[in-house]
């Protein structure tokens, strides 16, 4: 009896198409904001991993290397390097600036000691080696050989990194710490954190953070944004359910007499309900397919990074079917409660 439902979808194909596109768009939005949340989540780990260090030391009372600007003498790094278990240690400074990348753009500025722990691995070009050089993330749009003004001084781009962003896609640039001290700390030999390779568990006056601690700390400022995105995602599922529910309910209302005739001629309620449920599932799955296509088309044109996890593409059709079935309950109820006596009369 499924052929009756399939024929009905063909018969009302315009409405079905509109329903698929509308629901698909909502599903696509859900996928995209899932991608935003994924990007927020992943970029932090990538940023921290880019330093390729084991421990982060910040002054007692400071919240973390990326979220606090408490400064201290950079020479502390030399003392840290003497601690048993530490292979190497170097001072870093984490700052922010706004630079001209065609338009005014905020960047995260990380001051590192060239060749020491914290100096990033580059995707193209060379690592930092001397004053006046800068390594930029590819998301700045700059390439090796370009120039960039940071803290009022021009730096030559010698290398690029990939995917080193945080704070919702804000690109990161790396400059030598001696330049930072000269430009941002009035020549004072200061730092905001010490990074080490090798393990250290404590250091007087400082708190020692692992990479996981640092990642967690860096995700904290975006916690509200992430939870808001999660809430919006739920709202979008509800909107999608509303669209599917409306389409299926309208079908049920318009087919009231058909249902009455089918019941009067011996079709069971279960058969009618399955027929409508199949329509809802087809609509939901078609919308999920449309959503995947839309999301893949729209992702590149978004100004923020969109990292849709593979699991989302797997889960989407399953959730879509659940949403479709749930939202079609009103239509199903209407179908099974139709009085077959309606088949009589003119």
């Amino acid at each position, binding site marked *: 009896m499924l*052929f*009756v439902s399939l*024929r*009905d979808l063909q018969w009302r194909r315009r409405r079905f198409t509109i329903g698929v596109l509308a629901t698909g768009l909502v599903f696509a939005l859900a996928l995209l904001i899932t991608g935003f949340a994924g990007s927020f989540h992943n970029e932090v780990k990538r940023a921290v991993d880019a330093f390729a260090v084991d421990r982060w030391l910040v002054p007692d009372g400071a919240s973390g290397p990326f979220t606090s600007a408490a400064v201290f003498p950079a020479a502390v790094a030399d003392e840290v390097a003497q601690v048993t278990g530490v292979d190497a240690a170097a001072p870093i400074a984490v700052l922010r600036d706004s630079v001209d990348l065609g338009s005014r753009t905020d960047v995260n500025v990380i001051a590192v000691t060239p060749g020491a722990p914290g100096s990033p691995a580059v995707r193209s070009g060379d690592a930092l080696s001397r004053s006046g050089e800068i390594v930029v993330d590819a998301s700045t749009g700059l390439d090796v050989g370009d120039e960039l003004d940071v803290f009022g001084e021009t730096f030559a781009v010698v290398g690029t990194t990939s995917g080193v962003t945080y704070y919702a896609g804000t690109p990161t640039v790396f400059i030598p710490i001696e330049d930072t001290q000269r430009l941002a700390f009035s020549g004072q030999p200061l730092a905001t954190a010490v990074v080490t390779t090798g393990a250290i568990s404590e250091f007087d006056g400082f708190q020692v953070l692992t990479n996981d601690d640092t990642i967690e700390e860096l995700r904290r400022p975006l916690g509200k944004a992430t939870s808001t995105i999660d809430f919006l995602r739920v709202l979008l599922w509800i909107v999608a359910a509303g669209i599917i529910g409306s389409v299926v309910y309208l079908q049920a209302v318009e087919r009231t007499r058909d249902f009455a005739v089918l019941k009067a*001629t*011996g*079709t*069971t309620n279960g058969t009618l309900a399955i027929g409508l449920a199949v329509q809802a599932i087809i609509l939901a799955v078609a919308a999920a397919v449309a959503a995947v296509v839309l999301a893949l088309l729209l992702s590149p044109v978004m100004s923020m990074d969109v990292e849709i996890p593979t699991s989302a593409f797997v889960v989407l059709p399953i959730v879509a079917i659940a949403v479709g079935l749930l939202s079609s309950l009103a239509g199903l109820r209407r179908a099974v409660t139709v009085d077959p*006596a309606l088949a009589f009369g*003119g």
Partner: protein
Amino acid sequence: MTTHVQIRDLVVEYSSGGYPVRPINGLDLDASPGEVVLLLGASGSGKTTLLSILAAILTPTSGSVRVGDAEVTTLRGAALTRYRRDTVGVVFQAFNLIPSLTALENVEVPLRAGGVKRKVAKARAKLLLESVDLAERMTHRPGDLSGGQQQRVAIARALAHDPPLVLGDEPTAHLDYIQVEGVLKILRRIADDGRLVIVATHDDRMIPLADRVVNLTPRADVESRPPVRVELVAGAELFAQGDVGDLVYVVESGEIDIVRTRDDGTGEQVAIVKPGNYFGELAPMFGLRRSAGARATEPTVVTAYTMRDFRDRFQLVTPTETLANAAD
């Protein structure tokens, strides 16, 4: 395949505007295979209601309806579905074909719903459509078929499970005379094949087709009879709400209370009729059942007239005046 229909003391009562209405009140009917039985009557006389009961779609208030070995009024669940599918085929007034399906698919539907395999269902549907002369129109949707062709598809659908009982609800209502002829021929042929065909209609053109005509509209007694004097003690009922009425009454002495009964059993006084006034004229004039009951409030004498005598004696009473002055 042969199936007899036996209806005994059938009563259907439902609520209309807060008042109980009995379109069918104590109906008895017997019908046999091979017959075409016409249910004639005005709108509201219970034709479609009776078909709905025979189709096991409506449960009567009381009475017995036997179709073959089945007591239709007690069918439930799977037995009810089987009865609707296998025992009875219905041809609806408005064709009621599914617009998204072709003629062939419309006939296939009840077969597939009954678990018949697709190929078998298609072959059977083709045969049925050929039997109603629609071999060339099988792939057309209802919207591309004439009214007569749609009704023939509906007949083919009704015959899908080869039911012994076929019901037709005003099957010629939307057809012109050329299309009616084709449908009538098919209905007659269906009966001649050994089925019982029961058709509700107010189309007089169908009467020659019928083996039996059951008129469900209460008929006024048009014969002239001498007036009858009726003496009532206080509290005596002259007629009840829902009765078939063929007499008009004039109050000679005493008083008659006209009361309409509500769903909850309480009464609503419609009028008090005093000596020299008449009542009860609407039912015999228009072929309706009594819409209220009449009861004497004190020792009362009334004279009962047939409608013809009443008109002869009270010539000033026109139908318009009758309606304007009606007490029941």
